């Protein structure tokens, strides 16, 4: 079923100081149309790993491939590579001086160099996909957290990136705003968008993820289907973590 490999990391390391290793020897493959979900305790290096894939943090060792091109080779234009990767941040980070439309349009105009009209059309289309077309002319400060994050998603997908990386897209939101963002992600999943998501939204994971990856202390501890993790996680750490998550989800 799965097609070409879109993104891959091979033996990736990020070391902050001698004893503070954020990412340890992580190898991972995501193919066209796949949705993979990374979860694990906070501080386990999930975010750092995601940033390394987008070269927002430069890894210390290993390789990152985007459609077969090694981004760790000297002389590769990383900006150009980033243009093909959508990134959604935990704390949203919209451009505060631009409207929703302006946020989505910026890369289309100045990175992809689209003519004004075409960029506007494309940006509106992306906002339509996250159901925010009528909010196009509002500034970030005038939008709710959930709406802001949907603009963040529109900003990431407007360029038709090869893959979208999402770093805990709902964890900074008030509980009542999480649903609308999850709905948006569900729509993307239905359209076959390739995504790597760091998230602890377990019901959502179960529904859309083709594979779940349990991260702890900077490395991949266990991978498997959602069913595997919900019924019989192998490692003790994964078992404990899942038990806590499921308890938390029920109590909410």
């Amino acid at each position, binding site marked *: 079923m799965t097609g070409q490999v879109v993104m891959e990391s091979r033996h990736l390391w990020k070391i902050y100081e001698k004893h503070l290793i954020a990412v340890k020897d992580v190898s991972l493959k995501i193919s066209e149309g796949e949705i993979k979900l990374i979860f694990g305790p906070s501080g386990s290096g999930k975010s750092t790993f995601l940033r390394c894939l987008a070269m927002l943090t430069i890894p210390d060792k290993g390789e990152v491939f985007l459609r077969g091109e090694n981004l760790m080779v000297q002389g590769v234009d990383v900006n150009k590579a980033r243009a093909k990767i959508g990134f959604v941040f935990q704390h949203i980070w919209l451009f505060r001086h631009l409207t929703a439309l302006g946020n989505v349009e910026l*890369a289309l105009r*100045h990175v992809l160099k689209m003519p004004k009209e075409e960029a506007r059309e494309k940006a509106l289309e992306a906002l339509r996909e996250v159901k925010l077309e009528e909010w196009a002319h509002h*500034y970030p*400060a005038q939008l709710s957290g959930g709406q802001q994050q949907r603009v963040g998603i529109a900003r990431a997908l407007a360029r038709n990136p090869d893959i979208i990386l999402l770093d805990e897209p709902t964890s900074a939101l008030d509980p009542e705003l999480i649903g609308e963002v999850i709905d948006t992600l569900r729509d993307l999943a239905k359209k076959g968008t390739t995504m790597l998501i760091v998230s602890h939204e377990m019901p959502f994971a179960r529904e859309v993820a083709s594979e779940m990856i349990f991260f702890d202390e900077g490395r991949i501890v266990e991978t498997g289907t959602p069913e595997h993790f919900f019924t019989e996680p192998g490692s003790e750490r994964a078992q404990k973590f899942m038990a806590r998550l499921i308890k938390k989800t029920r109590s909410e």
Partner: protein
Amino acid sequence: MEFILRYLPLIWNGFVLTAQVTLFGIFAGLGLGMLLAIGDIYGGKIASTLIRFYVEFFRGSPIIVQLFIFYFVIPKLVGIRIDALTVGFMVFALNSAAYQKGYVKGAMETIFEDQMTAGLSIGMSRTQSIAYIILPQALRIVIPAWSNEFCSLTKSTSALLVIGVRDLTSAGQTIAGQTWRILETWVFIAVVYLLWITIVTKIMDIVYEKKKIPGIEMSA
């Protein structure tokens, strides 16, 4: 007061000169100040140290001394004669840049690293992120400080008379000297300064309001 009428052309010329030097100083100072702020933040240790020396010199010495240095000392060392007016334009731009670098840098630093990271994440280079994301926000925040800079720059242009440039204050000196009508002369000159500063700062207030964006304000 009719005697003032006779001197109006003199006052007008002085005023035009004062306005020219101030406006040039503030705009060239902004351009240079922006470059210095960017250099200080992103340019590494050596650039940052050089910039600090520059800023300390222009903020730490009286503008009259700076005018003397550029008018008398540097020509002597280099062997090129620069006319007084050019020195005036130069010194006021360089001086203002030292102050404006501080304002722009302060504003850029309140626009946290997150905006740069977000800029990179959409495929922009660092330079593009500065141009399209950081500066448009920083300059909006800087406008009120800019208004102050304009006031103090206008007033310090009266130092130009020490190198013989015929600015507004020097026009006042000439008139007072020739007519001995000291009271009327200086009150009139003061009112011209006052009007000019009031009008320009009002315009800046309007620009600030017009360009204001919800969520981006002066931080306290």
